[in-house]
């Protein structure tokens, strides 16, 4: 028979969820009014896991605390990851992983403001982009084209997992590919 908490236990669970929600708010520095949503998220996650709780094996309190902690970690990661992707940056900020290039260097002038926000460019720009890519690919050594074909379907990570080539070799090839595309005038390759 599935476990059903009593009213007193439910009240205690809500107070615990409130404390964990406040901890998330302090950690992530988010507004206080998010507490109710966070509490509901924690409780919903706990109630979904109650089918795995056996009263004969332990107390509800520690079980709930463990569930809340795990869920809090996931929520915190999600909030911080979302904040990182939406954090305002300057075009003059250095581009991570590149040598001396800025964020602005990776945005082509023809792309326009929308490209900075990840919006699709217009049709004419798309055609010009295709022509540029065609020209750039034509400058690459023929032996790199199979790698380019693979990269249209798979991420470097997936390619590294599926390929017998070592990850270090693959990423060395990718670096060389990026530099050659940069030479060919494809700035986003950086």
């Amino acid at each position, binding site marked *: 028979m599935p476990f059903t908490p009593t009213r007193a236990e439910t009240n205690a669970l809500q107070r615990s969820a409130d404390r964990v929600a406040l901890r998330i708010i302090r950690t992530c520095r988010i507004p206080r009014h998010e507490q109710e949503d966070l509490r509901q998220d924690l409780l919903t996650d706990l109630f979904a896991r109650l089918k795995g709780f056996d009263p004969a094996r332990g107390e509800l309190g520690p079980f709930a605390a463990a569930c809340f902690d795990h869920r809090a970690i996931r929520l915190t990661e999600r909030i911080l990851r979302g904040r990182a992707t939406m954090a305002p940056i300057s075009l003059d900020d250095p581009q991570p992983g590149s040598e001396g290039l800025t964020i602005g260097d990776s945005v082509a002038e023809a792309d326009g403001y929308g490209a900075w926000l990840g919006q699709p460019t217009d049709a004419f720009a798309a055609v010009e982009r295709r022509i540029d890519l065609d020209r750039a690919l034509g*400058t690459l050594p023929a032996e790199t084209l199979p790698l380019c074909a693979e990269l249209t379907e798979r991420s470097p990570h997936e390619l590294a997992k599926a390929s017998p080539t070592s990850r270090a070799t693959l990423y060395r090839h990718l670096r060389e590919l990026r530099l050659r595309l*940069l030479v060919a005038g494809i700035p986003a390759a950086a």
Partner: protein
Amino acid sequence: MDSTITGFRSAEPPLTETMFCAWFGSAVPGDRIVYHRGFLAVDASPLTSTVPDAERRALLRVAERALQLAEDGLVHLVQRRMGESDFIYLAIARPRARSRAGTLASVLAAAKPMSVAA
């Protein structure tokens, strides 16, 4: 001896390989960049260089990239003596040759899984 450099765009140190490639990507024929000043053979050698090793390796990458672009016919590499063991090394962009057309289509076609006839 002429010590005035005019009409050249001096690289802001340190010039990295990526920055050099980015320069060429946006260069028009005739554009020039100073990719090193000093004595390249000495400055790039681990036995004789006086700069930190990371900086020396970065210089070596730039020099090798410049040489590769020259071998591909994309730049002229020239030197100008400024003094004893003091040269400026310039890369001058050349007109680009026509590249192979239709490469993008062949790459995209190669990426698609082949359909099997029923």
